[in-house]
């Protein structure tokens, strides 16, 4: 998959939704959380994160508000909207079906298959 462990756009959005479903977070924090949840498999390419956040805001899945962090600094926090919560459910289902299909496809063996 080009390139290794890169997350493609839609999958990234799905993961962001999941991350935010646990608690509101700012942009940097979201990347950290996904990293933790995937046990280090996904280092979110910063290049994709912020544009994805804007797109998701446009679609009404998340909204943003400026808050003060524990270090007394201003940061933009993102929250999941009800629409976003619903979308998370849809995408999770879709992902399960799709990945199951791929797995099934890759699993079948024929004569020419060498281990």
């Amino acid at each position, binding site marked *: 998959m080009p390139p290794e462990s890169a997350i493609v756009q839609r999958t990234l959005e799905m993961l962001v939704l999941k991350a935010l479903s646990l608690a509101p977070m700012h942009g940097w924090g979201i990347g950290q959380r996904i990293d933790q949840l995937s*046990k280090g498999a*996904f280092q979110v390419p910063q290049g994709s994160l912020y544009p994805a956040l804007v797109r998701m805001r446009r679609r009404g899945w998340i909204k943003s508000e400026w808050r003060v962090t524990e270090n007394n600094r201003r940061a933009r926090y993102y929250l999941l909207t009800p629409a976003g919560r619903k979308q998370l459910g849809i995408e999770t289902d879709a992902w399960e079906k799709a*990945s199951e299909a791929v*797995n099934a496809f890759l699993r*079948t063996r024929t004569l020419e298959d060498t281990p």
Partner: protein
Amino acid sequence: MNRDAMELLQGTLDVLILRTLAWQPMHGYAVSRWIRERTEGTIEIEDAPLYKALHRLERAGCVSAEWGVSENNRRARYYRLTATGRRRLREEESAWRRYAAAVFRVLEPA
């Protein structure tokens, strides 16, 4: 449904194609038909990304192409897996497993 699947699996195109050609050489149309049938319609690959991927794989040396005659007696371009391609298939398969597992990990904690 199909569209969502493809968008979520955007990076998996290569592995699907390579796996398909591992069974036998085919032309592009047959590849997409094969995948569609084997996944019972879940995964439908559009021509544009399919040919883009095929050409990319050809440039990378994973597949080779030549002209042949199709089942209805037309000229068609047939793709076949090379040794490099076989190696790449194995790599892509494990990459996929890791990837899917990672996504599941993120999705799991309720």
